[in-house]
């Protein structure tokens, strides 16, 4: 049984099929990539998984429990955490309080030490007392990851975590993600930085026009003709 199982999930906005019957698995301790051109339905799928959007049809389960119709905060209690493509930090709280709110919501016992450890881990300790709204995008993305981790998730959904990061920061992020999975965390990663995706993912799904058009190891995906066509518009 996979950590996250998505079966036949469909999302329809009026006459537009944003996600059209997707099957996808994320295993514990692995990083699963989800790539595809803009408008492929990646963020919609994220919204369905985290409970911000009801699926028109289909089933989502975490650890074998059907969560398709649970509210976002119930899903968080089941071990789901996510970051956002457009930053959603609590802009008027300090960086430390951003992470602390999450830790408190997860009812952790040793909150202060957890918060410090996480800030250290993602490398933003020096920004702890800054107001989150003042951060440049790169640091803000790292804080969002720390905040998501503070809920003690089993499954982390990352929506373009590397956008706005420079090359060295993006490298650090890759290393961080690999470290996290060693403790058994499952990661679903939406990302446009292909070198990062190819470097860190265990398996990759390719989404185009709401359908999964390919699934496999990074090597396999890099050579799949359908993928190349979806990205480049012509067969190679």
């Amino acid at each position, binding site marked *: 049984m996979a950590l996250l199982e998505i079966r036949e999930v469909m999302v329809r906005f009026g006459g537009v099929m944003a996600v059209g019957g997707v099957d996808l698995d994320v295993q514990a301790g692995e990083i699963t990539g989800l790539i595809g051109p803009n408008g492929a339905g990646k963020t919609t799928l994220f919204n369905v998984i985290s409970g911000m959007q009801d699926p028109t049809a289909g089933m989502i389960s975490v650890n074998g429990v059907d969560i398709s119709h649970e509210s*976002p905060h119930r*899903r968080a209690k089941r071990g789901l*955490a996510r970051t956002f493509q*457009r930053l*959603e930090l609590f802009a008027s709280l300090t960086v430390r*309080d951003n992470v*602390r709110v999450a830790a408190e*919501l997860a009812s952790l016992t040793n909150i202060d030490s957890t918060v410090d450890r996480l800030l250290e881990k993602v490398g933003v300790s020096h920004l702890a007392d800054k107001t989150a709204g003042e951060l440049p995008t790169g640091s803000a993305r790292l804080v969002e990851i720390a905040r*998501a981790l503070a809920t003690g998730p089993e499954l982390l959904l990352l929506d373009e975590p590397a956008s706005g990061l420079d090359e060295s920061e993006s490298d650090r992020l890759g290393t961080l993600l690999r470290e996290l999975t060693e403790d058994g965390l499952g990661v679903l990663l939406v990302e446009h930085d292909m070198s990062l995706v190819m470097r860190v993912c265990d398996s990759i799904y390719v989404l185009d026009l709401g359908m999964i058009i390919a699934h496999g190891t990074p090597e396999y995906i890099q050579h799949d003709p359908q993928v190349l066509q979806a990205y480049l518009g012509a067969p190679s």
Partner: protein
Amino acid sequence: MQELLTFTIIGLSTGAIYAVVASGLVVTYTTSGIFNLAHGATGMLAAFTYWQLRFDWDLPAPIALFITLFILCPLFGLLTERIVMRGLQGTTEVVRLSVTVALFAFMIGLANTVWPSDGSREAFLKFFEGNTVPIGGINVSWHKIITFGCAVVVAIVLRLLLFRTRMGVAMRAVVDDRSLTELNGGRPNRVAMFAWALSAMLAGLAGILLAGEQQLNIEPLVLLVINAYAAAIIGGLKSLPRTFAGAAVLGLLDAYYLQFSDNSWFPQSFMGFGLSGIRASIPTIVLFVALLVRPQSRLRAGTVRFREENKVPSWNTAVLGAVSLIVVVVGISGMLTRSNTLFLLNGFTLAIVALSLVPLTGYAGQMSLAPLTFAGLGAVAMSKLPGDGNLLTLLAAITIVAIVGAAVALPAIRLSGIYLALSTAAFAVLVTKLIFNQRQTFMSGNISVPILDIPFIDINSPRGRLILSATAFSLLGLGVIALRRSRLGRRLIALKDSPVAAATLGMNLTQTKLAAFAISAGIAACAGALAGDKVSPQQYDFTQSLPIVLLAVVGGVGTVGGALFGGLLLGGNAVLANAVPSLKNITKIMPGLTGITLGRNPNGATSQISEKFRPLLNRWGIISFSALGGVGIWALDASRIISHWAFFIGGVFWFLAVMPNLIAIVDGTSPRRWWAGAIALTGLAVSLGVDWDQAVDSTGKRLLSLILLVAIFGVGTQRVAENAPRIHHSSPDLLGLDVALTPDELDNVERELGVTI
């Protein structure tokens, strides 16, 4: 059967007025995203203007109508958009709504000023007064038929306008996607101006039609907007046909209720409460139901949010502030006359009501338009509960109102932003009509709230009550600050900053909002429960809530200081109005005027003021010097060398005009700093030296002199002092490199960077 026809016609005619008003609301909301609470007030002003032209100056009706509807109304709409509304793009919903509240207050003040209700006034006649047409055996007035006709014409014109004209297409484009329209060469600002002009015309038409039926009264005309909300909400604030249908339903419900309630079998009371208020509440009830059946607002990521820049005070600052507030009030309370004591008391009561908005609106970002309603419920609970004012009764009253607050919010909580705010408005109107206006609740128009019974302390005097309310404000303020620093406080901020992130991190948004509403209602309840005197239902009327919301937002709804500022300003207004009757009208307009400028400083006035004092932190020498100065001025008063007025004026001058400039005077390098010091000293000498009791003879004039003094000497000091280069206590990365640095600043940069040359 014939009766049914009669009431159907009456109902459709009422519905026609609602439809015209509601369509105006929809037009502005869709094109500029601003829900205009002052829409009904616009209609009210138009009705008064028309009355002035038609019945006071005896112009022929067509000319008066033309001038009002086709010249003045559109002009008013254009100016409103250009001067007030345009600056509001990108601000929070709270600010946008507050500005329309300000407009609302301003227009009521204006109407009261220009057309005071002193009884004898020419009647506002219906169109073709006295003429009727028989329809199905009954006589229908021409006015009703014209009203109905107007709605039909408005419907047709709007339809043609939106679908057949360039401007209409541009309007629909702006509704669909503002930025895309702009990229394609559309001009959203022009469209918005046109929409506001059109909307003002529609409001004006409805106002004139309604005044013909109900005469010129400010309140029903202004509250017309609540009835129209209901119709507009049924239309989802978007669809005009559904809005018209909603308006018709409302009008018919009202008429049929009138018909049925006339029957003998119709119950006149329920559980001891008279049902006479029901009819007037129908639109509100429909509004409530329409809001409740709206689909739950979806969580969306990526909505633009505004960052508030309120610093959280440290415990030391908070306690220091609370203690000094009590000390100052105790100190000056002995010097005040009885009426000024009562006004200040009122100011503190309003400040507590404003404080109730800090956790709810300031922290959690949820707008409530009904804070005073909860204060009123607190007063009712305190007077009806047993115990005759002991502390337990107070606690029970607070608890009950807090539960009511949560219960009211519970059904509405699925909504967000404007919808939630409107449902609190609906609740306030409902409580006003069904509870406060009941003879059972307020015996002979008043209830007496028992004075809080505190062991060993007698507070049975205005002075005692003033000190009690200042203490209550201080304690509650400390509580609110403690809340902000607590786990729940962080959650409230998180809820405001990003509901979607909060939910996906595991926060139960409903529970958190309920907590905010309950806390807010509880705080407001204190204001009512501590009244300790006879109170009348008018004090807690919905329209009275709006200036409080407004001034709290003006003061800065994110801070306790902002609440105090707002409450005292509103209370101070009353002092001014009482002291100088000729200024009464200006004080009515003032809250509105202050609020209209809000778009420029969404963080509120107190944050600006405290920003001025921030550099003084850690400058203990200067702080002690200022404190010594204050004590010195007080000592002069205590030894009867100067009068109370000189003490007050000198004290305000010392702290507001001199203290913020002391750093510049002490640290500045420019020779001009001595000039600044001299100006400050002269101002102080004048304020202390003049025999205010003799020189100017009334409170209002003295207050005006104070304002003049601060303006002349304070601003003078500041201007002169500011020209002197000062040391900037900012880190190097905050210095604008596009501005040439002064030598001092360069030194500072080098020091901060640790480089010495």
